């Protein structure tokens, strides 16, 4: 039995610790936060801590207060992202290869004081929008408020790999110095719900579990905002379809931050072609809002409103291409290469392929096609037990689409500008790319 501890912040503590309650310079995100939390950005807060029994998958943590800054010794708009084997998934026999994890702080800000819970191993996904957590990882004592009066709202979120069926609640997400207050989030595989209706199960197979996700949930921070899932209201053991306003849908929490709300940067160091046991990168919130998220020197890849661009590889154009940290490898068709028993491309030796990335749209102005390259190595030569991070596994894609997955991120900083954001580099959605490794640009 694991325990999760929840700390209750006493607003009085802010008054007692004056040195920790001043304006925080670049620290932003809490202005407008009601009930005694308006000004604090730094410092070590006091507060009573209570331990709540919990049978969740999340690692036990404690002493969470709201707000908290610089929990990882990083700039307040930045958190660490780790590629590693998640022990909880490994216990189920599931590898969490190339799965970028962050730790989040999930809060109920409707109470005073606010109540928070730390949840580890949440997948950072640039191919979706919104926070989804396994209900089993969320402490029921958070007592998250419903998003509306009346019957419980449920959602079927669809992915290529399958669907996630869960309830929809209001929660606040805190990550280091950033706070997204009162956002709709999905609690996946919530036992309080009836089973998924046929219109949901008919979209694929159920991936709302630890083994399929690899972690306790998904933090969708891609370039769009609302998740456009299937919504339902549920009562008396059954669920019926409903049209939920966009503003109530599960949404990208980055758009809810006070200042650093126009996109994210995801950065990972380069790794060897043989892979690496673990890698730590960073997820930085905001673009051009702080000294650590400037897009100066980045190459821009404008995308259409579906966040697609055209990748050209071996003379073939793929107009529905995208960059997705939630895809484990690269999924790009490479004619002439054979597949190994894993279904991965297996060249005779390590091989790199050039690609050019260009815009699908006339506006923003299409810059010159951006040359990049990616490596391919026979995955039967790799050790998936010892290592969790790989930059050179490529699987076949589909006609029209190249999916640049987690394999593509190493040795790069990749920016994702939110739809509607206006920056000197263009209007979102767009991608921004800066390469740091020798095999990049």
């Amino acid at each position, binding site marked *: 039995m694991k325990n999760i501890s929840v700390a209750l912040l006493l607003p009085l503590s802010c008054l007692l610790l004056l040195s920790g309650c001043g304006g925080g310079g670049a620290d932003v995100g809490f202005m407008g936060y009601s009930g005694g939390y308006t000004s604090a950005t730094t410092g070590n807060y006091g507060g009573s801590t209570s331990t709540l029994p919990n049978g969740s998958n999340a690692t036990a943590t404690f002493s969470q207060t709201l707000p908290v800054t610089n929990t990882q010794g990083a700039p307040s708009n930045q958190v660490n992202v780790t590629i590693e084997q998640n022990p909880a998934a490994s216990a189920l026999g599931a*590898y969490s*290869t*190339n*799965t970028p994890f962050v730790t989040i702080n999930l809060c109920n800000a409707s109470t005073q004081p606010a109540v928070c819970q730390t949840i580890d191993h949440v*997948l950072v*996904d640039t*191919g*979706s*929008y919104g926070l989804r957590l396994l209900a089993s990882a969320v402490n029921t004592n958070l007592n998250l408020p419903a998003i509306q009066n009346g019957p419980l709202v449920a959602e079927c*979120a*669809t*992915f*290529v*790999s*399958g*669907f996630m069926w869960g309830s929809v609640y209001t929660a606040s997400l805190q990550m280091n110095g950033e706070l997204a207050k009162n956002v709709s989030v999905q609690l996946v595989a919530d036992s309080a719900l009836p089973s998924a*209706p*046929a*219109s949901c199960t*008919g*979209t*694929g*197979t159920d*991936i709302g579990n630890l*083994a*399929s996700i*690899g972690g306790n949930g*998904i933090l*969708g921070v*891609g370039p*769009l905002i609302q*998740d*456009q*899932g*299937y919504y339902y209201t549920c009562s008396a053991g059954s669920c*019926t*379809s409903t049209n939920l306003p966009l503003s109530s849908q599960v949404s990208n929490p980055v758009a809810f931050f006070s200042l650093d709300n126009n996109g994210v940067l995801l950065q990972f160091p380069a790794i060897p072609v043989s892979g690496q046991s673990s890698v730590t990168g960073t997820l930085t919130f905001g673009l051009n809002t702080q000294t650590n998220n400037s897009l100066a020197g980045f190459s821009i890849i404008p995308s259409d409103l*579906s*966040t*697609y661009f055209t990748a050209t590889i071996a003379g073939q154009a793929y107009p*529905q291409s*995208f960059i*997705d940290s*939630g*895809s*484990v*490898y690269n*999924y790009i068709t490479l004619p002439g290469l054979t597949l190994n028993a*894993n*279904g991965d491309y297996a060249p005779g030796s390590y091989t790199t392929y050039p690609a050019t990335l260009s815009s699908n749209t006339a506006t923003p102005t299409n810059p010159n096609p951006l040359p990049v390259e990616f490596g391919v190595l026979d995955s039967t030569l790799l050790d998936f037990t010892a290592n969790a991070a790989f930059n050179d596994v490529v*699987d*076949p*894609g*589909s*006609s*029209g*689409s190249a*999916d640049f*997955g*987690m394999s593509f991120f190493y040795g790069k900083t990749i920016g994702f500008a939110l739809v509607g954001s206006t920056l000197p580099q263009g209007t979102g959605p767009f991608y921004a790319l800066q390469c740091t490794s020798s095999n990049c640009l």
Partner: protein
Amino acid sequence: MEHRLSFGTQSVFFLILSGTLLFPPLASAALGGSDQHLALEGALQPSASSRVLAAQIPTGVRAQTLITPQGVTVTQWSAQGTVFALSWQGPMIPDLSVILGSSFPSYSAALRARPRQGLNAPLRLQSAGLVAHTIGHMGAYSGWAYLPALVPQGLNLTTLGIEP
């Protein structure tokens, strides 16, 4: 009201009112089934699909397109009254159990069989009985499927926007 309707009252009402296309309310329609109606509830569209111009539809092939209430465009392709292929695109994945019909168990089994690829790695099912691809990410998905045994002799599937 459920999303899933094989041929609901509302659809019949819509068809009669619109007067554009009338399909008799048969009991079933999906990949491999009759083309006398479209399986999903939605608004019928005059064109075949955004990927294929009506003028390019091969002789002997019938194209029918609808848009579901959630905004997914589904096109089914039939020959001699039997649906042999379909394609779709939209912000979410449609109820494939309806449009794939008896082929859906093979599709969902292929999803379950593949090693963990993450959320939105493309699905490529290439079997003798069924070929199905699904690609994309949240807000922009698309896919197609066909039954190789039912594809008319000599038809090049690429003319339908489908990768053979």
